[in-house]
């Protein structure tokens, strides 16, 4: 892996066909979208950001959502074009788009490729038909398989997402499902344990006690362990807590986040991190899509928040993000020697050549480890 964190652009598309019950992303169902206005607003935000970052080499673009595969390909093209003309494109720029696997969306894949997209991440979520229903997904297993296959023909790099530790899922059924996924995969997989987020449909049901059949901590831990074993055996080890790739297939854009690189965030609710002359700066934009759109149009900026991070903040963020990675973080950021020693003694972390990494045993305990290291 090339260890220069890099500079990327995140583009948020906040619309979806329906809202999934587990999802707490900034996603909305909207009857109509004024595509011309959105195209212009996104491009205008890119130009605004470029004015302060100056001419840099841009390494990655990521279209996330919401559902970016609902974007008209012209909009995708226009955004890529705006980025290319605002910054200097690196030779092998990675341009990723998140796609939902309905047949309609798969039908647009070629047009996205023509617009410049060279990597897609498909939201398969499950290879069990009933479970897709329970997750509120609009596509079938067959459609999802077909979408992945189509993508693999069109794009040089394809990843897909699965959510596991679902209701009533057993260790055996996950073994079976993951084996199928591994046989479909071409170099990259995101495998997320289902998280019950507050103020989602699942979150509400959970707090009422009506979301049944979720795995307990032990089963969750067993599933996590199994996932590590199977992906390693298949040559797709975890390079991040939930992300698996064969060597060289890592998502370079996401690595920018985890390695505390720099990125610009455009679109509603997008965050950015930039190293500016005044220091490392965190930015945020208006969360509500129409508020963001109006702000960009009327005030020339969708930004809602900008804070200078203190050296302490920068250090903590670097650890919070970096310990997720297999490569770990530089020891420089960690001052709590006592915690490091205790955790090393417990076999949860290891320190080598001035870097701290989680051991296999430590990986499922990341949050507890962070608490000990940073609080």
């Amino acid at each position, binding site marked *: 892996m090339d260890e220069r964190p890099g500079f990327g652009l995140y583009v948020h598309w906040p619309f979806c066909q329906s809202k999934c019950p587990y999802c707490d992303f900034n996603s909305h169902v909207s009857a109509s979208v004024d595509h011309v206005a959105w195209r212009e607003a996104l491009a205008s935000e890119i130009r605004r950001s470029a004015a302060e970052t100056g001419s840099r080499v841009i390494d990655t673009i990521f279209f996330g959502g919401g559902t970016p595969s609902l974007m008209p390909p012209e909009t995708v093209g226009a955004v890529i074009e705006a980025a290319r003309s605002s910054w200097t494109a690196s030779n092998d720029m990675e341009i990723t788009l998140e796609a939902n696997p309905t047949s309609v969306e798969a039908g647009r894949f070629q047009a996205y490729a023509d617009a410049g997209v060279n990597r897609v991440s498909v939201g398969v979520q499950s290879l069990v038909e009933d479970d897709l229903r329970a997750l509120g997904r609009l596509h079938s297993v067959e459609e999802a398989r077909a979408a992945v296959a189509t993508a693999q023909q069109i794009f040089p790099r394809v990843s897909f997402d699965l959510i596991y530790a679902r209701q009533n899922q057993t260790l055996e059924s996950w073994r079976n499902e993951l084996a199928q996924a591994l046989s479909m995969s071409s170099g990259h997989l995101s495998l997320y344990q289902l998280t019950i987020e507050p103020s989602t449909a699942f979150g509400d049901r959970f707090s009422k006690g009506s979301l049944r059949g979720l795995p307990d901590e032990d089963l969750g831990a067993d599933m996590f362990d199994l996932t590590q074993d199977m992906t390693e055996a298949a040559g797709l080890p975890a390079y991040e807590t939930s992300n698996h790739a064969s060597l060289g297939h890592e998502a370079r854009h996401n690595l920018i986040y985890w390695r505390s690189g720099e990125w610009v*965030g455009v679109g509603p*609710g997008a965050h950015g991190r930039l190293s500016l002359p005044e220091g490392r700066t965190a930015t945020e934009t208006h969360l509500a899509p129409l508020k963001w759109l109006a702000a960009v149009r009327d005030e020339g900026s969708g930004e809602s928040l900008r804070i200078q991070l203190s050296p302490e903040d920068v250090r903590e*963020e670097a650890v*919070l993000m970096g310990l997720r990675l297999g490569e770990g973080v530089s020891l420089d950021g960690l001052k709590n020697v006592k915690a490091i020693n205790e955790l090393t003694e417990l076999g949860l972390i290891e320190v080598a050549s001035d870097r701290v990494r989680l051991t296999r045993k430590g990986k499922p305990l*990341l949050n*507890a480890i962070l608490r000990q290291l940073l*609080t």
Partner: protein
Amino acid sequence: MTDLARIRNFSIVAHIDHGKSTLADRLIQLTGTVAERDMKAQMLDSMDIERERGITIKANTVRIEYPAKDGQTYILNLIDTPGHVDFAYEVSRSMRAVEGSLLVVDASQGVEAQTLANVYQAIDANHEIVPVLNKIDLPAAEPARVKEQIEDVIGIDASQALEISAKTGLGIPEVLEAIVTRLPAPKGDRDAPLKAMLVDSWYDSYLGVVVMIRIIDGVVRKGDMIKMMQTGARYGIDKLAVLKPQMVDIKELGPGEIGIFTASIKQVRDTRVGDTITHEKRPCAKALPGFKPSIPVVFCGLFPVDANDFDDLRDAIEKLQLNDASFTAEMETSAALGFGFRCGFLGLLHLEVIRDRLEREYDIDLITTAPSVVYHIHMKDGTMRELHNPADMPDLTYVERIEEPRIKATILVPDEYLGAVLKLCEDRRGIQMDLTYAGQRAMVVYDLPLNEVVFDFYDRLKSVTKGYASFDYQMQGYREDKLVKMSILVNDEPVDALSMMVHRDRADARGRAMCEKLKELIPRHMFKIPIQAAIGGKVIARETLSALRKDVTAKCYGGDATRKKKLLEKQKAGKKKMRQFGKVEIPQEAFINALKMDS
């Protein structure tokens, strides 16, 4: 100044929840003391804890004006008192400031233990008592039967008892008339030297120390130089007011009146409830007898979570003692917890309330150690030591015998729950002293070790009787028993703050229960933690808290860095509520919750 004949001072007393505060609301409302739009239920219960728990903790005074049927307007000073046994001191203190009591009895519940206790106190204070049957709107109300009970059990005339509903307002005009016609007017000499009783005091962040007084003789005015007879402190009065219930300035207070003053009082210690206040220049000859001091029965250590807060805690305790003379505090140090205070309380609810008030009103995070009663340790050299803290238990080779405090508990309970109550008392090492019947209800008297009662007896009693039993107790003195110190070891390290005295025969069960409880209360760590109970070097119970297996956030993208940082800040705050013992973090509530037994 008001003519003595047109003043009536009274307290409202009752068993818990019989409707004192609601009756106070109606009296305030009907006399127009508070504008209709500002009324709210139990409006005198103004503290957050009172509103949350739905009970009165502090006695509250209000001055109302009532135009009576005789054409005269009377000044009524009412004191709403708490009903819970832990706050009985508030009631006795309040009664000293007034001449009569409205004895409220819930007509659907009848006479309860605190009804009795309050009557005895009222008689002791020479009060005229007006019985008031409340909640007659309830279908279950049986006023006739309850009147009989009042006569049989308490032995006072109930033929004139009023029948009211504080909820609907039924019978409230009659209550006001009865206050005027049946309670005596106060006595006092306007021309005599000033003699006033210091009834209550509290700390107000704007006004400083506020002092509530009842004038016995003489007149006090703004600007007067006064003296507190017990402490000798001298001050000039800055502000003189009455409570309606908000402060309304007044020029002077004369005999029989109740009001408040402020006097730029610097030394919080100068203000003691029960003290006599007089004029510096023309003092009264003899001070009032003062209040009987209350005797704390439960002790625990209170330590600031953040050692830097020690001075703030000292200051907060002083200020809170102004408002509650019934808790005591002495400095203490602990190896694990640093500097703090060993505090004494009238019961476990009292302890919880004080701790809550310190945390909320003064914004200090506290660690509470295991509550304990006071043991008498008789040493072989013939001396006796009071043991307030099990951690200070002397070496057993020097100990001759250990005595524990016992109480006489009176419990009133409907027949059908009697069996459950007897079992509870037997389980708690009780000795039955008496069992009598009053109608459908039994009155049992037990001699019980206080130590078995303070922690959760009251809660257990409520739960085994569905809330139908009532309970009162008095201290009985000390008796020797087979008592031992039980230590708790977490991850092989003894945790002083959790050690406790127990009866040898109950130690195993208690030890097991403690270990099980702690296993629930201590969060899982990244390693497994043995939890043991031991007497001397011998382990009598053991549990193992298994290691945490999974705690990881599945997805984390660019925008989540901010989110994770916020979570971390929260965890940092949460960590402050934990105490480190060796490698183990114990949440502060665990120290007290570990003692609450399920049986």
